[in-house]
């Protein structure tokens, strides 16, 4: 792990200069979606790469220790051993990037993972997820408690009210405080792009989040009406590129919400490769927030290895 993004001072002048041409971004998104997706062993390799970037997530009201346990075991062995073996990938440490749970389930997850002799990171959403409409003090407290329970990655949500009303200083200050509360835990800042109105606002919020020291910027909570879309992602990764050009710090990117098929995960990888390059195609810089995606990827890999389409019950459930 190289240096984290320490953040910078809030550069409002830069924020105000942001311009995004929506139709051009839409066109670029279409272009990326229209690219040929990899086939054969390229597809298998890319899908495995996608697996290693997944934050395997469960964020439901009915989460209990038992389903969190299953999730953790699936995260440690995301693809059936025999399938990996056929591709000679069984000893290459293919796990998902992390598991992602609510703060109250962090302790369960940490316990399960330890029990399985794994060092897989546990991520937790925090700060009044998903709406962020709770007092700052309780949001900060939530972060501290999740970290105390053993979460090494925290997905915070921004205060949309501040972004929509253009109070960038206030938003910057809040995120700064979250970052402090995270301590050594990596911070992923969820912009909830479905509620930011315009692509220009997405770009601005991305810059503010990075200036405030986010290690990742993340599209959405999965609970808004609009989730991770390619045009929004293009704008966010451009902001990441912009920040990198200005400061030399590489910030990661995490699309989340609505990513369900293996095909989509390949488009996401293509998008990152096209816009940011191979440097970002690793779990340290790129995550896919997803729950049901893994099952589809595993089926595709099954097909690659056996030439047959699997029924869902042939693959271990999460």
């Amino acid at each position: 792990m190289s240096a984290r993004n320490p953040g910078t001072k809030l550069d409002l002048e830069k924020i105000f200069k942001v311009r995004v041409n929506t139709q051009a971004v839409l066109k670029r998104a279409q272009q990326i979606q229209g690219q040929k997706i990899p086939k054969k062993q390229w597809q298998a390799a890319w899908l495995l790469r996608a697996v290693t970037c997944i934050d395997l997530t469960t964020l439901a009201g009915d989460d209990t220790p038992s389903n969190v346990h299953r999730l953790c075991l699936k995260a440690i062995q995301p693809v059936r051993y025999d399938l990996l073996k056929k591709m000679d990938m069984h000893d290459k440490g293919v796990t998902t990037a992390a598991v992602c749970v609510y703060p109250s389930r962090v302790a369960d997850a940490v316990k399960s993972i330890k029990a399985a002799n794994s060092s897989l990171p546990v991520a937790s959403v925090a700060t009044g997820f998903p709406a962020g409409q709770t007092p700052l003090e309780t949001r900060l407290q939530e972060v501290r408690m999740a970290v105390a329970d053993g979460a090494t990655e925290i997905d915070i949500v921004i205060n949309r009210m501040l972004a929509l009303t253009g109070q960038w200083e206030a938003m910057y200050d809040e995120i700064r405080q979250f970052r402090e509360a995270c301590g050594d835990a990596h911070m992923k800042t969820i912009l909830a792009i479905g509620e930011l109105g315009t692509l220009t606002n997405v770009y601005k919020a991305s810059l503010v989040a990075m200036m405030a020291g986010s290690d990742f910027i993340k599209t959405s909570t999965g609970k808004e009406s609009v989730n991770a879309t390619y045009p929004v992602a293009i704008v966010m990764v451009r902001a990441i590129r912009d920040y990198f050009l200005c400061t030399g710090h590489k910030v990661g990117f995490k699309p989340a919400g609505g990513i369900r098929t293996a095909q989509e995960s390949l488009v996401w990888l293509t998008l990152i490769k096209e816009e940011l390059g191979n440097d970002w195609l690793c779990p340290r810089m790129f995550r896919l927030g997803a729950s049901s995606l893994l099952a589809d990827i595993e089926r595709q890999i099954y097909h690659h290895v056996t030439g047959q389409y699997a029924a869902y019950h042939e693959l271990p459930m999460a």
Partner: protein
Amino acid sequence: MAGSTAKTVHDIFVNMEYGPAATSSAATAQAWLDHHSRSLGLFIDGKFVRPADRQSRSLVDSKGGNLCSTVCAVEDDISQCASSAVNGFKAWSSLTCYQRAKVLLRLVSVLGQHAQCLSELCDLCEASCSSSTLVRLLQFYSGWAQLRDTLITNWTPLGVVAVVVSDDCSLYSLMLKVLPALAMGNSVIVVPGRSTSPPALLLGQLFMSAGFPAGAFNVVTGCDMTLGAKVAKNASISYVTYSGNKQDGVTLCKATAGMGVPVSVSPCIGATCPFIIFESADIDSAVDGVIDTAFKKKKEVHWLLCVQENVLDSVVARLRLRMAGMKCVALPSDGDRALVEAAVQEAQQQGATLVQSCAAPPSGTQYPPTVLCGAAPSSSCVVNPSAGPLLPLLTFRSNTEAVALGNHSPHGQAASIWTEDLTLALETAKNLSVGSVWVNSHSVCDPCLPVSGHKDSGTCTDGGQEGLYQFLRPSSSSSPPLPRSSPVSMDYTKFGTAASPAIIPDDSDSASAPKPYLQFVGGKACKAVSGCSVAVQSSGASSVLAYCPDGGRKDVRNAVEAAIKVQPGWMKKSPSARAQSLYSLAKGLEAKKRDLAASINVQTGISLEDADREVELSIARLSDLAAYCDKIQGGTLPMLQSGSALSIPEALGVVGVVLPDKNPLLSMVTLLGAAIAGGNAVIMVPSQKHPLPTLAFVQVLQFSDLPAGLVNIVTGSRDQLTMALATHSVIKAIWYWGSSEGCQYLQYTCTSPLKTLRLFCQKDNMGKDWTHPSLLEEMWRNAVQWKSVWIPTA
């Protein structure tokens, strides 16, 4: 495949490389070629014709494999084709608009059935054109075919139209000429280039199955570009229109000069176009656009990247990142490598720095995408760009400088401008002298957008409603403007250099001594620079009526100088202000109507009564054109994507007019009025035979409120002045009434830069009926060029 299967999943997992490009199948197209034994005939009279004993031209695909051979047509084939096209025209033009539209629409479904074959064939021939764009063209033009008689009244088709394209022209550009010609009821003879030959021949077959009458669409192939001129020589051809590179276009113009057939040129390949990034742009998107278009293997235009100085660093930084992964681009031919390297070296010596995706391989026909930052405006990569993935980058300080930089080129094809500032976008679009402006986008083609190259980029408009008129003539004109003729052998350098004949008048009777007239340059009545005069004789050539100045090259130069100074200001005036000036000109004419009538009477020998009538008509004509000023308008265009597309009429600039002998006053005010109503300045050369009414009109001009220099009248020898107009690069268009030698001279000479020519060979009393009101539309359409502006929105 051995190499690719050797890659293990783990290798790829680590490197995250893209897989090998899928090899596209071309089985259907190959089967079609095999069906024709890989030897394609000519497509004449609705069927393939393979005459014996012809040379053939063999075509190879991109990998050098044999594709097929085409026939090199000879004289006999051309005349067979032309007579079939004449019959085709009869059959096709006698259908109703609805029937023609239906056939065009039926072609859409035929195309749908054979889309695979066509697109594969296009790929093989590197004439790439997706069948969806062809469908769009067909649907657009079937609409116009349907409504021709409803929306375009008083115009009729020309007859047989020859569409000639160069070897590197795309199938889209070819069809952008063919389909409007057909939609308007003409029959077409296509002379395709190397890459468009097989697809054009396939299309011939598809046209037939859609129900076109035999002979409406013919394809003749040749060994080289000389075939175009050979086809043009056939007397049944009414019009020749060309698309492709400039060089071959010029060759065609010179080869067809004097044949008595109008030729228009759309040099759509090889123009230099500015790509302007303002500080207010979405720079990432702009850079995407650059990456998209600038480094293609087969590029139709050469881009010149212009970046506002204060965002240069961020543009270059993004270019560097985005270019990092790009592969080398194949150069069209082996010889290009040396050219590319020379251009890069020259730019570097002049201080340019390189942004390259990777180092250039030591040799071979591959070269990495390269941006030449800070290239000198004089360096050959800017002025005379070669093939290859090179992109010169210049910086500008202000918005006005961006426009100046963009306009500082002989080309006027298109520009791409990037800014989020709407006012700036529209102002820049207005001030760039190019035919197409793409705001926050690039290279957008659609048949509804008129494409009309400004400056050296074309002499006709393609696409849109405006592009239909090149395939039509006013119903009122009974005869074609140019009678068919054979080129005479002439020494073009000697044209117009003969000295004026000296006529010593018999001035025994000093009371009736001929009056000396003055010409009108820069708003002042003046003598010729040479100080000499020529005599004007009466209609029977029995006596000298007057003396007029013997103007020459320098008088034309002075007039152009004065004209170009005031023309932009005149164009910028509101249309209604221009209208008021024209109305007051009409009023001024009314005040002097006796003088004018007298001069017509004296000059032409017609009765005073008839002369009076001509003056009255002239007054009415000026008023008509005054009223037209604010009726000449473009509009919004129906694009497929969301956004705003505009077509805007713009002045040509400075127009040279060599006036006809017939109706000397009426024809003069019609041409003058049309030119200035459209926002142009004019240099008029009065008829050598009947100059007096025009010279008498000077007194009206002197007291008008037109800006000084907008209208200039230079008298003298017609040939000499025609030569002076032809050799002045500022003049964008010449309207000429005169000898067939003069027409031939102009067609031959006005190619560099290209001038829009309207040529009329006048013989005796034939020619235009100047009293007919329907010629007004023809006149104002000749006086404007079109600009399309595309502003896409989400």
